[in-house]
């Protein structure tokens, strides 16, 4: 498979979501998980924050208010994405139009799921995060820009660097299929298996 179109820069309006420990139950409530497809999860993303019990938009939630209704970047609190491994959380955020979350640190499984789905998670210092929270709170809705190649975020006159490991950076830019890539190493996998004793191979009883 050829690489999809390269994504080197992510630009858009950012919304501040400063809560710490936003877990994947909050990002994608369980009632949206009873599905065998990846589709139709946009409505589920942050559903209990976006909608009240009657299904009406909650006016106190940032993404329900202009200009943040158009936000494609979130500035998030510490430990965003903690909890359950459900990749549905990332699928739903992508379907809601979110391309990046900027924070000081992310839960591990969420971080890996994000990479597989083109959701960029730049990691910044607390000072940069606090600045971006303030910058994105401005209702004039100035765009910010994330340059994946140079690992720099630009917001107004300010530029700041972010952390992202090399494999994630490469994966996001190329938008490649990891499984296909790995199968190019099928020989190495077979070599590894050839080195295993018979006592090191599980065979589950049916």
């Amino acid at each position: 498979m050829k690489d999809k179109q390269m994504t080197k820069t992510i630009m858009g309006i950012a919304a501040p979501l400063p809560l710490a420990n936003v877990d994947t139950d909050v990002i994608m409530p369980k009632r949206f998980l009873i599905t065998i497809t990846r589709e139709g999860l946009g409505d589920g993303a942050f559903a209990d924050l976006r909608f009240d019990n009657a299904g009406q938009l909650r006016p106190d939630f940032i993404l329900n208010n202009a200009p943040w209704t158009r936000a494609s970047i979130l500035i998030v609190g510490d430990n965003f994405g903690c909890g359950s491994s459900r990749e549905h959380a990332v699928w739903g955020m992508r379907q809601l139009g979110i391309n990046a979350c900027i924070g000081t640190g992310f839960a591990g499984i969420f971080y890996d799921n994000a990479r597989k789905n083109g959701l960029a998670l730049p990691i910044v210092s607390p000072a940069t995060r606090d600045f971006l929270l303030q910058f994105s709170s401005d209702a004039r809705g100035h765009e910010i820009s994330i340059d994946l190649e140079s690992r720099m975020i630009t917001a107004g006159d300010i530029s700041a660097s972010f952390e992202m490991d090399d494999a994630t950076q490469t994966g996001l830019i190329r938008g490649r299929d990891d499984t296909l890539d790995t199968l190019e190493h099928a020989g190495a996998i077979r070599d590894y298996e050839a080195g295993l004793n018979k006592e090191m191979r599980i065979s589950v009883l049916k």
Partner: protein
Amino acid sequence: MSRTLYDKLVDAHKVCDLPDGDMLIYVDFHIMNEYTSPQAFSGLDTKGFNVWRPEAHLAVVDHVNATRGSAPHDAASKLLIDNLQANCTKHGIAFYGLGDPRQGIEHVVVPEQGLVAPGMLIACGDSHTTTYGAYGALGFGIGTSEVEHVLATQTLRYKRMQTMRVTIDGDTALGVTAKDIIMKVVQTVGAGGANGFAVEFAGAAIRGLDMAGRMTVCNMAVELGARAALIAADEKTKTALQGHSHSGQFAFNGESWISDQDAIFNQEVSISGADIEPLITWGTSPDQSIPITANVPCAVDYISSEAKAALARSLRYMGLSEGQSARSIQIDTAFIGSCTNSRIEDLREAANILDGRQVAAGVEAIVVPGSAMTRIKAEAEGLRAIFEAAGFEWRPEAGCSMCLAMNDDIAMDGERVASSTNRNFEGRQGRGARTHLMSPAMVAAAAIAGHLADVRDFK
């Protein structure tokens, strides 16, 4: 060179380095459930991949199934269950479905079946796969794209983590359980404090735990952000490997699955066992816990305005007041179950408190054994009779149930649950539901009292 147990496990499973800085690691055993695997199978089919080694996988139904009876409670959950069975049949994968005597919560089933052993690398589309660290195995949760990757390649792309050792020295007091130990660790390290780390638990209080207790500790390590949790294999581990249907299948020779004595960890945390009391969570993050003898925090306890705001938000959701005593919190529901605390040892612990006592009027009390095998064993031991005599509802089918409320065991808006589970997130047990995490014994004590209560008062 001296190595940690974690590094030994990673080294033993490394297939090759990849050009982008990741490595490929080999997965000895992979477990699937009905809700995080469907899109992985459809991905395989769309791209035309085969399953690399079908016998190295096990699929279990546990998340969405009803526990009142073996029939699915609605069409949507039936679709998920049937879909998993069809995918397993198509690809030649073992499937332990509803009605199978081996069915249950995946992390309860695996040790019961003897499918975990020191030195193994185990992956599963479930964050609580850290449980297997109790056996000196490297277990961790993965997303659905990675489930597809394991199915197609028997490997994962992996980045070596930093290591943290959490040492709990000294003896713990009577009434303090493995659940209290790990809740204390979560409280100390913080909900994201171990992000990017593999955590090894050490010290006398850990060595003193039985295998069920060690599983409880490693299970909830993910609540401090640990992607992997480990406990060194010892004589107890060796004993626990015997007598199961898959015993002896996996024996990774030539390694002792412990950290070398002078191995260096990137971070060390030390907790005195004597400082641990029976804990309860008061908030909406697993690190928001206090001893049962204490009071809910007040705004003045916090310095930053963010922390004060977070406290206010948690208290509002939980319907609690600043400074309220833990023991004044009235409950509606008591729930014993989940991959953290539904093993036979957990049921014994709760039954010990319930024996000869009655659940308080107005409290709905439910116990869901972790597996069909656990249920049968508990019934044979007379535990069911004790639970039922006390007023608990004994569920005939095993599953995750009200831990995450993906089936029909859903707590109502505002309903307050004393729960032996692992997460007290907003909406976790139902929209608006309020969860207090604690040990199974403490859930039993709360059920009897009608409010959160100190298990040490129920001797």
